[in-house]
C-alpha cells in the first residue's frame, strides 16, 4: 500500500458574489514510502493548493475539499483538526517557497526548532537545544550553536531555507512536501538546497513530494513526475520516460522552455505561447486547448480523460499527443550543486548580516 494516496482530490474556493474557483479538479496520485514524486506545472495550476489540502492547511471557510487523502490508510480529510495537528510536523512535514517570510521574525531560529521538538518529541531545555544544534549541523549550517540564537533577519535566504528544512525534518517525518523550496533563492544556493534535500530524504527514507514549475529540479530528483495543468494532472510517468518520450503538448512545451545542456548556443528557448490565464474550463473541453499547437476539433468539445497511453504507458490526458520521438526533446540540465562553487558560497552566506 502506498504511503500517501490522493484520490480524486478537488478543492473549490467559493466566495460570495464570485464564481467558484476549481483550483484542484480531481487529482489522483500516490507516493510510495521513501519515493520522490514531482508535481510540475505553471503558476496557478493548483500545486500549492494540492499540498495545502494534503496538510489540512486550507482555510476552513471558503475552501471546499472533496475526495480522499489516504496517509497510511487513514483519510486525512476525515481526521479532526486536533488529530491533524498531531500528525503535522511529526509524520508529514512541509517546506515552503519563501524563506524570507516563512520564519517568525520575533523568535530565534533555535526557538522555532525547539518548539517542534517540544511538541512532538517531548524534548525540553538542554536536550532540545542540543538536538536543534545537531539538526542545524545536519542541514549544513556552520557554527550551529551560535546560529541557534540568531533571529531570522540575521541569516541569509539560503540559510533560512536550511533552517526551515531542519524544522521540517526535526521529527523524521515519513513524508516531506516541498513547495517550490528553491524558487526564491539564487541559482547556486538553489543547487545546494536541492542537493541537501536529496541527501536528507535518501538518508532518512523520507518520501518527498517536490512541487515545482521547473523541470530542471525534477530532472535531478524525482522518481515519478506528474504534470498539472489548470487543476488536473495531464501527464504522469516515471522521470526517465517522461523526459525521453513526452507526449502531452503541455509537457513538451514545458520541456522546450527549459534550458538544456545539449542545445546549441544561440537557439532561443521556446516558451509556451499564451498564458495560463487563457484557459477553457474543463467542463467545455481541454483547458490547454487555447494554447495548444496540436489542437483538434474534439479538444474544444469534450475534455479528454486521463488514460493509459498505449505507446509509452504514461497516464495521458490528450486526444492528439506528440508521436513518441517525433519532436525529440532532451532532458533539461538537472540543477546540481558544483562542489567548487558550493563551498565558498556557504562561507559568503555566513558573513552576511
Amino acid at each position, binding site marked *: 500500500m502506498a504511503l500517501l494516496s490522493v484520490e480524486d482530490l478537488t478543492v473549490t474556493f467559493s466566495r460570495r458574489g464570485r464564481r467558484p474557483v476549481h483550483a484542484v479538479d480531481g487529482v489522483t496520485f500516490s507516493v510510495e514510502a521513501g519515493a520522490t514524486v514531482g508535481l510540475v506545472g505553471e503558476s496557478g495550476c493548483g500545486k500549492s493548493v494540492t499540498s495545502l489540502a494534503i*496538510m489540512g*492547511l486550507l482555510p476552513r471557510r471558503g475552501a471546499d475539499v472533496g475526495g480522499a487523502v489516504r496517509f497510511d490508510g487513514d483519510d486525512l480529510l476525515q481526521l479532526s*483538526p486536533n488529530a*491533524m*495537528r*498531531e*500528525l*503535522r*510536523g*511529526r509524520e508529514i*512535514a*512541509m517546506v*515552503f517557497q*519563501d524563506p524570507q*517570510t*516563512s*520564519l*517568525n*521574525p*520575533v*523568535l*530565534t531560529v533555535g526557538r522555532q526548532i525547539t*518548539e*517542534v521538538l517540544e*511538541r*512532538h518529541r517531548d524534548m525540553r531545555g538542554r536536550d532540545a537545544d542540543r538536538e536543534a544544534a545537531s539538526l542545524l549541523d545536519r542541514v549544513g549550517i556552520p557554527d550551529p550553536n551560535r546560529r541557534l540564537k540568531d*533571529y531570522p*533577519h*540575521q541569516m541569509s535566504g539560503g540559510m533560512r531555507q536550511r533552517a*526551515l528544512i531542519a*524544522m*521540517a525534518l526535526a521529527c523524521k517525518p515519513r513524508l516531506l512536501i516541498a513547495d517550490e523550496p528553491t524558487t526564491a533563492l539564487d541559482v547556486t544556493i538553489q543547487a545546494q538546497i536541492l542537493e541537501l534535500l536529496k541527501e536528507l530524504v535518501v538518508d532518512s527514507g523520507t518520501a518527498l513530494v517536490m512541487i515545482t514549475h521547473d523541470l530542471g529540479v525534477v530532472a535531478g530528483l524525482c522518481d515519478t513526475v506528474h504534470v498539472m495543468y489548470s487543476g488536473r494532472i495531464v501527464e504522469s510517468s516515471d522521470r526517465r520516460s517522461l523526459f525521453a518520450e513526452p507526449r502531452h503538448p503541455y509537457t513538451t512545451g514545458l520541456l522546450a522552455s527549459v534550458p538544456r545542456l545539449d542545445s546549441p548556443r544561440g537557439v532561443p528557448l521556446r516558451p509556451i505561447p499564451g498564458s495560463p490565464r487563457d484557459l477553457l474550463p474543463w467542463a467545455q473541453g481541454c483547458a490547454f486547448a487555447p494554447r495548444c499547437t496540436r489542437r483538434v476539433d474534439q479538444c474544444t468539445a469534450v475534455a479528454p480523460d486521463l488514460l493509459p497511453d498505449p505507446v509509452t504507458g504514461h497516464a495521458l490526458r490528450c486526444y492528439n499527443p506528440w508521436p513518441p520521438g517525433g519532436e525529440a526533446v532532451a532532458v533539461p540540465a538537472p540543477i546540481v550543486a558544483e562542489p567548487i562553487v558550493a563551498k565558498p558560497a556557504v562561507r559568503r552566506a555566513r558573513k552576511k*548580516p
Partner: protein
Amino acid sequence: MLKFVVRRLLLLVPILVGLSILVFAWVRALPGGPEAALLGERATPERIAAVRHEYGLDKPVYQQYVTYVGHVVTGDFGQSIKTTRPVLGDIKVKFPATIELALAALIFALVLGIPLGFIAARRYQTWADSSTIVGSLLGISIPVFFLAYLLKYVFAVKLHWLPSTGRLDPTIDIPHPTGFYVLDAIIAGDWHTFVDALRHLILPGIALGTIPLAIVTRITRAAVLEVSNEDYVRTAEAKGLRRRTVDERHILRNAMLPVATVVGLQTGLLLSGAVLTEIVFAWPGMGSWLYDATFNRDFPVLEGGILFLAVVFVMVNLLVDVSYGVLDPRIRLQGK
C-alpha cells in the same frame, strides 16, 4: 540603544524651549490676569498694580520670560498665585493621582481590548466581529464627560455600588509615602483601604479607559487579521503546534507590535488629557488642577504644569520606542 535614548533626550530641549514660549505667550494672551481672580472685580487700580508688580507682570513679556527660564533651570517653578503653594510641591501630589487613574484606564483598555480584538479577528465577519466593530465605534464617539456622568449617575448615585468622587473615603487616614493610594494601602498593609482605593478607581477608570479600549480593540483586531495571514503562521501550523501556541507565540506576539505604538500614544494622552474625567469624579489630579489654574489665571501653575506634562509625554513615547526594541529583534539588533 543608549545612543538612541540620549539623542531622544537631547531632542527634548528644543521641544521644551518652543513649548515654554508658546505656553508663556498663551497664558498672557488670556483675557484678564491673575489679579482679577485673586482680588475680585471691584479691586482698586492701586491694589491691582501692586499685585501685578509683586508677580513681575508689569515688566515686558520677554523680560518675564528670561526671569522665568532662569528660575526653571535652577528647578524653581515658582508658586501658585492663588494658593501660594510651590508648583513643584503640588505636582508631586497631583501627578501620582493622575498616573494612578491613567494606569487604571490603561489596564481596563488592555485587559479587555486585546482579547476582544483577538476574538473579533478569529470570528471575522460573524456577528461577534460586527458587534465588536460597532461597539468600538460607539466607544470612540461617545463624549467622555457624558459617559463619565452616566456612569456616575447609574452606578454611584442611583445604585450606590461605587463611590462617586475622590480617591479615598474621607474618613480613611493612612500615610502616603508614594502618593499612589493603592500602593500606599499595600505598604500600610491595610486591606480595607486597598479595596476602597480600588473602588474609587473603577468608575473614572472606565470613563477614561473607554476610548483607549475602543482603539486597542480595533488595532488588535486588524493586527491579528493581518498576522494570521503571514507565511510564518502557516509554517507554525505546518509544524503541528497546538492552536494555543500558534495563537499566543506566533500570532499575538507579532500583533502586539502595532498595539504597543497606540498604547504609547494613548498613555501620553491619558496622562495629559484626563481633565473631563477628573472634573466629573472630583479626582484631584493634574487635569482638574490645571483646569482650576486656567480659571484663576494662575500663570506659574499653568506654565509649570504644562511643561511638566510635555516632558512626561515625550518620556512616555521614548519608553514606547524602547519597548518596541524589546518586542522586535529587528529593531533591537539594528546595526549589529
